[in-house]
C-alpha cells in the first residue's frame, strides 16, 4: 500500500472510532492513546476497523509500533 492510501485508511478508521477528532489540527506525531484519548476498547476497534478496510491484521506484539498516527501509517505502508 502506498503512503497516501495508508493515510486515507488511517484517517477513515480514526474518524469512525473517534468522530470528534479534527484532522486539520492533528499532528502526525500525535499519540493515539494520550493525545487522541483513545482508550483500550477504542484502540481495539481502530485495529479492527483497519483490518476490515485494508486486510492488515496488526498483532498485539506490534501495538507499540502503531502508538502514533505516523507509526500507524508507516505500519500500513509496510504491511499493506
Amino acid at each position, binding site marked *: 500500500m502506498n503512503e497516501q492510501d495508508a493515510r486515507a485508511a488511517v484517517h477513515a478508521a480514526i474518524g469512525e472510532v473517534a468522530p470528534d477528532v479534527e484532522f486539520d489540527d492533528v499532528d502526525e506525531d500525535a499519540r493515539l492513546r494520550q493525545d487522541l484519548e483513545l*482508550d483500550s476498547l477504542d484502540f481495539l476497534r481502530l485495529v479492527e476497523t483497519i483490518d476490515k478496510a485494508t486486510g492488515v491484521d496488526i498483532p498485539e506484539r506490534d501495538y507499540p509500533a502503531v502508538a502514533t498516527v505516523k507509526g500507524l501509517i508507516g505500519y500500513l505502508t509496510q504491511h499493506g
Partner: protein
Amino acid sequence: MPSLGADMQHGKLVEWLVKPGDYVRRGDLVAVVDTDKTVMDVESFQEGVVADLLVGIGETVPVGTPLARITQTPAEVGSPAHEAPTPRAPTTAHTVKPQHPDAPGPALGPPIAPPVRHLAHRLGVDTGKIQGTGKDGAITRADVEHAMAARAGGTSRVRSSPRARRLAAELGIGLSTVTGTGPDGAVTVADVQGAAAKVPTPGPPEPGPPEPGPVASAPESPAKGRAPSEEARERVASLRRAIGALMTRSKQTIPHYYLSTTLDLRAAVAWMQTVNAHRPVAARLVPSALLLKAAALAARDVPEVNGFYDDGGFRPSAAVHLGVAVALRRGGLVAPAIHDAETLPLDVLMEQLRDLVSRARAGRLQRAEMADPTLTVTNLGDLGVDSVYGVIYPPQVAMVGLGRVMEQPWAENGLLGVRYAAIATLSADHRVSDGLRGARYLARINELLQEPEHL
C-alpha cells in the same frame, strides 16, 4: 416515567417506539427518554395493547408520570388474524401536528420522505393504508417494509418486537425474510441479528428518511433550529450539572474511606497475550475485561461492597451488576451496568463491555443498565493515570478504581524483576464496611488475577 438513576427528577420523551394498537410484552422497548445524562430506551413493564400515549414527544415530565395506558387483554388480541393493517387512526395526535418538512406539500396523507415514497411505490405498497411510526406520524422505511411483509404473508402480519423492527430497519433487512423463533413465530432481536450475519454486506442503503436522531429532532424541542454544536454544548453542560449534583450529594452523605493495592498482573497479562495471539482482532481481550471480571467475582466474596444504602440501611445485592464508568468523548461520563458480571464467561463479558461502551458513547443505553449497578468500576488507567480514587455513586456503597497496566520493577524473594502491574483502589462507605473488609476485597481481586484461566 421510570427513574433511570438515583439522581433523576424528570425526563423528556423524545421518541415513541410503539403506537396505539400495538401489542407489547413486558420488556419490549416502547419509548426513548432523554435525561440530563443520556438518551435511553425505556421498556414496558406490562403486557397488553397500547391504548393511549399520554405524553407527547418533546414533553418533559416528572418521574412517576404515566407515559401510556396499556390495556391488559388475552394474548389472542395480538394474534395475527386481528392485526390487519389499520388505516390511519384519525384520533391520534399525529393529525394535529404540523406537517413534517419533508412531507409532500399539504397532502392529506401522513408525512413521508421522498425516498420512502419511492420505496413504497416500487414495492406496490399503498402509503394511505400505513400508520406511520416515525416522527409526527411519518411513514418510515420500516413501516413500508412492514406493510409489504404483511401483504406478502397474506393475512399473517410478521409479529416482532418493536426493537427487532427497529433493528431490522436499521440494518436494511425486511422482516418478512427473517424466520421468527419467538412466541407464535415472532421475530426477535436475535433473529434479526442472525439474519444480518448471513447477509454478506447490506446493500448500499438508499438515502432514508432523516433518522429519528432522538435529541436533535424532537419537534417541540426549544433547541430547534440552533446549530447542532450549540446543542451539543448545552448537553455537555447539563450532563456536567447532573454529575456535579450527584457527586456533591455523595460527598455530603457518604463517609468515604480509601484504600489502594498494587495488583500483580504478570500471570494475567501473559495468559491474555497467549490467548490473543490465536485470535482475530474482533475476539481479542483487553486487560480491562480481566480486571472487571475479577472485581465482580471478588464482590461476591466480600458482599459489603456490593449493594445499596438507603433509608432502611444497607441492602446487599446477591447479583453483581457491575457499573462501568465510561468517559464520553465530548465530555462527561455515564456508568451503565454489565448485569450479573460475576457469572459471565470472560469472552461474553468482553463482548458486553465493547457493546456497552459503544452504546454509551452513541447515547443509546437502556433503562435497566443505567438504573441498577450495584458496584461501579472506573478505569481511568486506560487513559494513562497511575491510580484513581472515585467518588461513590449513591445509593451504591463502593467504587473501584483501576490504574494503568504497565511494566514495573518488582522485588520478590530478594530479587528484582519486571512485571506488569496496576494499582487498584477502593472508595467505600464507612456506614457499611471498615478498612479491614475493604482490604480483603482488594486482596481478593489480586488473588483471582493470579489464576486468569479460571476467571
